[in-house]
Structures are given as C-alpha cells and as structure tokens.
C-alpha cells in the first residue's frame, strides 16, 4: 500500500450521508461477530483480571473470597515486587532510548542508495521476524556461563585477565545488561522500518524548496525532518514501549528473574506468582500495574490519530 493510493482514495471517503438504512443494518450484522468475540475474550477477561486482583483466588480451586486491596498492599510491601517494578521501567526506558537513537541512525543510513540494500534490509529484519522465545534461546547460548563467545572475545583482546570471568546471567547488573541487549536487538528492526517509512514519506520537494531558500542541514533537520517525523516517531516509540514494557519472554528465558529475583519485570513476576506459584490473586494484582502505562499509551495513540485526521 503506498501513500499515493491512500491519498487517491481519500476524496471518495466522504461517506455516512449516502448510506441507506439497509446498508447500515448489514454493516452491524457483519461487525457483530468480531465485536462479540473481542468483548467476550478481551474486555471480559480484562475486567476479570481486575476482579481477580481483589480476591484470594488460587489455582486448582474455583472458590475464593473478596479481600479488597489486600493483594495490592502485600505486593507493594514486597521488595521483590518493588525491584521488578523498577526493573520494568529501567528495561523499557534504556532499551527504547537506545533503540530510538540507533534506529534513527540506521534508518538514515538505509535512505541512501547502495548495492545489496534489499539483502541488508532482509538481514536487519531477522531479529524481529524470529519467534522471540527461539531468538532469546540463541542469546542464552551466547551468554552461556562456560561457553560464552563474548567472554572468549574479551579474553582474546585481553579485557578479561587470567582468572577473570563474566557470569552474564548469574549477576544482577550483567543480567540486566544482557536483557537490555536482547530487547534492543529485537526492537531495533521494528523501529527502523517504521522510521524509514516516515523518512521516505517526506516529499523531496520540501527539501528542495528549503535548499532554494538557503536552509542549512541543521535547520532542515529541526524545521522539516523532526516536525514531519513526529507522528511516526511517536508511533515507533509507542509500540516499542508497549512491546518492551509488557514482555516477559526475554526475562523468563534468560534469567528466570534471577539471581535472587533481582532481574524480574512485572510480567515475569506475575507469571511466577500467578501461574507457577498458583497465587492467582497476587499475580493478577502484579499484572494490573501494567495498566496505567498502557492507558497512557492508548491516549497518546488516540491523539495522534485525531491529529492525523485534522491535518
């Protein structure tokens, strides 16, 4: 789908007035199954998650009673949870910051013509296309405690002296470095292709006109590229944040939250307590802490879509 196609289709989009009653009725019938499904299997479970967080429900029994905010109080009092909450923000912020910086550099580099561009695009996309659990497994082998190829390289260049060793996944700080590396590696292709789409959508004529008006590269960046890229930049950040903030696969497969629960994130802790540990109420309460940021992201998304309609 190209942007020109969208532009061509826009003038004939003035619908609403021309719709007959029968058409509207048909529209409702066609929409109903999908809406019913989404209501029953997304909206209702979402409300159920909130409900469960207020109960002492546990796996293996369907009986429970209301405990009010007790789960939340217990969770907030737990150092493991506070650490996980902190980690979630660190992981998300650091990895998305790196992804945005690197993604912008890479997208600009990919704008220039060069031989083998299609091959490069395919190779750069690999981390995003591979199933996350299998890609993380590849990294688990790279970070292996005995056979880590990174340690081998550090030994060869002399960074690690005799007797010195990095246990990547057995150390709180190195574990976080490993987890952030995998997140950056995986999200970089996604953000890059979105930013690339944004860069290519800026018409050449605008840059040419600015050249004629005598604008330098700096003022072109600040007055043309950044303002025109803002919506797409927001989209890339938005999805990047949501996908990183809510992910548990990387942490679960790399460190299982260890050592001593020091690298947990909200989602992996909710899985550990709510599913593996069987304390459904507690797990639900931990997962609920994902909601405020998601709501914020949804609001930003709505604003962009509204602005895009107005422009």
């Amino acid at each position, binding site marked *: 789908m190209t942007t020109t196609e969208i532009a061509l289709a826009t003038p004939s989009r003035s619908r609403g007035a021309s719709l007959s009653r029968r058409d*509207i009725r048909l529209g409702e019938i066609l*929409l109903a199954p999908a809406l019913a499904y989404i209501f029953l299997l997304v909206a209702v479970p979402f409300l159920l998650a909130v409900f469960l967080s207020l109960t002492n429900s546990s796996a293996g029994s*369907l009986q429970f009673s209301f405990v009010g905010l007790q789960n939340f109080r217990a969770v907030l009092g737990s150092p493991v949870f506070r650490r996980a909450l902190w980690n979630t923000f660190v992981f998300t912020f650091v990895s998305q910051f790196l992804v945005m910086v690197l993604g912008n550099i890479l997208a600009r580099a990919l704008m220039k013509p060069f031989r083998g561009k299609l091959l490069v695009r395919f190779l750069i996309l690999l981390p995003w296309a591979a199933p996350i659990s299998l890609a993380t497994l590849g990294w688990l082998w790279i970070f292996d405690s005995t056979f880590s190829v990174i340690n081998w390289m550090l030994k060869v260049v002399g960074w690690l002296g005799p007797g010195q060793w990095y246990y990547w996944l057995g150390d709180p700080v190195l574990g976080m470095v490993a987890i952030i590396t995998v997140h950056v590696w995986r999200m970089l292709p996604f953000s890059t292709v979105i930013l690339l789409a944004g860069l290519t959508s800026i018409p050449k004529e605008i840059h040419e006109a600015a050249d004629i008006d005598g604008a330098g590269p700096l003022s072109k960046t600040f007055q043309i590229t950044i303002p025109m890229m803002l919506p797409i930049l927001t989209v890339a950040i938005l999805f990047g944040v949501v996908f990183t903030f*809510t992910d548990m696969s990387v942490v679960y497969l790399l460190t299982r939250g260890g050592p001593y629960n020091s690298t947990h994130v909200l989602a992996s802790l909710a899985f550990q307590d709510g599913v593996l540990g069987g304390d459904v109420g507690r797990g639900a309460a931990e997962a609920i802490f994902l909601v405020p940021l998601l709501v914020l992201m949804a609001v930003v998304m709505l604003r962009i879509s509204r602005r895009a309609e107005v422009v």
Partner: protein
Amino acid sequence: MARRGWGGALRTIGHRLLILGFTGFAIFPFYWMAVTAFKQNADLYVGASNTAHNPFIFNRPPTLEHLQILFGTTLYPTWLFNTLWVGGLVVAITLLLGVPAAYSLARLTGRWGEHLSIAIFLTYLIPSTLLFIPFSRLVALLGLQNQLWALVLIYPTFTVPFCTWLLMGFLKTLPKEIEESAMVDGCSRMSAIVRVVLPLAVPGLLTAVIFALTLTIQEFVYSLTFISSVSRMTVSVGVPVALVRGDVYYWGSLMAACLITSVPLALLYNFFLDRFIAGFTVGAIK
C-alpha cells in the same frame, strides 16, 4: 549530490561500515545458531577460557548429527505439526471474523465506525501478560487445560484486531465505485462483496493470512501458560522448555531448531513488510 574527492570517499566508507556494523549485530545470533547446529560436540564444548580454540570457525568437519537428533529422536516434528494445526484454525477464525468486520468498518459505518476501528486496534495493545491470568481461569472453567483448543480459542484475541485493522486499511484503498457499479447491475451488496470486492482484495487477504500465521507461530506466553504435556506443545514453547533435559542443554539441536523455525518466518515477513508497516502507521503518514 556532492560525493566527490576524499571527503566523499570517506563518507561512503563510513556509511558502508555503519551498515556493516548494524547488519553484523542483527545477524550475529543467527550466524551463531548456524555454526552451533553443524559443529561436532568436541568442537562445541571446549570452554571459552581456551583462547587458542577459535569458536567462530569449524575446527573439526561439520556434522549433521544434531539435525538427525532433532528430527529423529525429539518431538520437534510434532511441535511443528501442532503449531501449524493451531495456526491453520486461527487463520480461519481470523478471516471469518475479521473480513466482514473490516468491510463493515471500511464501507458501511459512518463516523462512529472510524472511532470503533481505532478502539479495535487499541485492543491489540492489551498484552498477553495481562490476560493470561484471567484466561487461565476461563480455560479451567471450559475444561480446556493442556489442550491446543485453548490456544485456538485465545490466539484470535490478538490476530483479529490486528488483521481487521490491516484489512480495513486495504479495503479503503479500493474505490467504492467497483461494488456500486456491480450493484447498479442488479447485484445485492452481499453478492457484490463476494464476487467483486473479495477477488480484488486477495493481496490484502494474503497479508492478513501471513500475519495471523506468523503471530501464532511467534506466540510464547499463552502457550507456555496453558500447555503442559510435551507432546502437545507448539514450537515456540517446546524448543526452549522441552528440548532442555534437566540441566543438560543439547545446544546443537536447540540452535538447529531455532534457525529452521526462524528463517522461513523472516522470509515471509520480508516479503510482506510494506503492508505490515502500513498496518502500524496508517494515520501517522500522510
């Protein structure tokens, strides 16, 4: 384009090095999977403290042993089959729910349809890590624990919103006049949709099929939560959870499984990339 002289040459070299660096970062784990998958164990398990042994190359002749183990003695083929079985059903459900909804949102609803379509897309932002706990109750209630049907029931929660949104964007690019002229010729709207619109929408439908399938193959959290029998696992869970026996990792076979599963998906993605981007950026690019 002023790419003359030394400055230009240096900039070109810098640009190529940059591209090379990023590409190397992106593909290194896959290179590492490939090398591991074909190495003999004696070449594999040397230990990184031995700097005389270069792990990047084959120090002994490559072997197919790990592949033979993977396909001959592990349940990998079963997991592949399970994954495709779930994937096929999820694609069918996604199309059945998504195509009519997308048409309706593209053509038959007015202003409120636009708001509704954004609301549907926003449900894609609700993560599996928030829903797996209520779903575990639901699955238990329906008696679907440890069954692939649980995944068939739940996976459309992310494929339907995403594919409806993709298809709606695609259908909006088709001119309205096609089915209007068919309707002038005496077709009802339903038969105009089936006979005129759907054939034209095949590229869009294909994209939806590919993405419903790849999202299903990639999914990890629900599958990990609901499937406990090794023989019923999907690839994304079976390989990391059940190929590891006790504390012993069969790295050769593991990496072979990762590589074999990932590369076809990457090819599919690459082929449909432009439509995928369009799905995420509708509205943000004008």
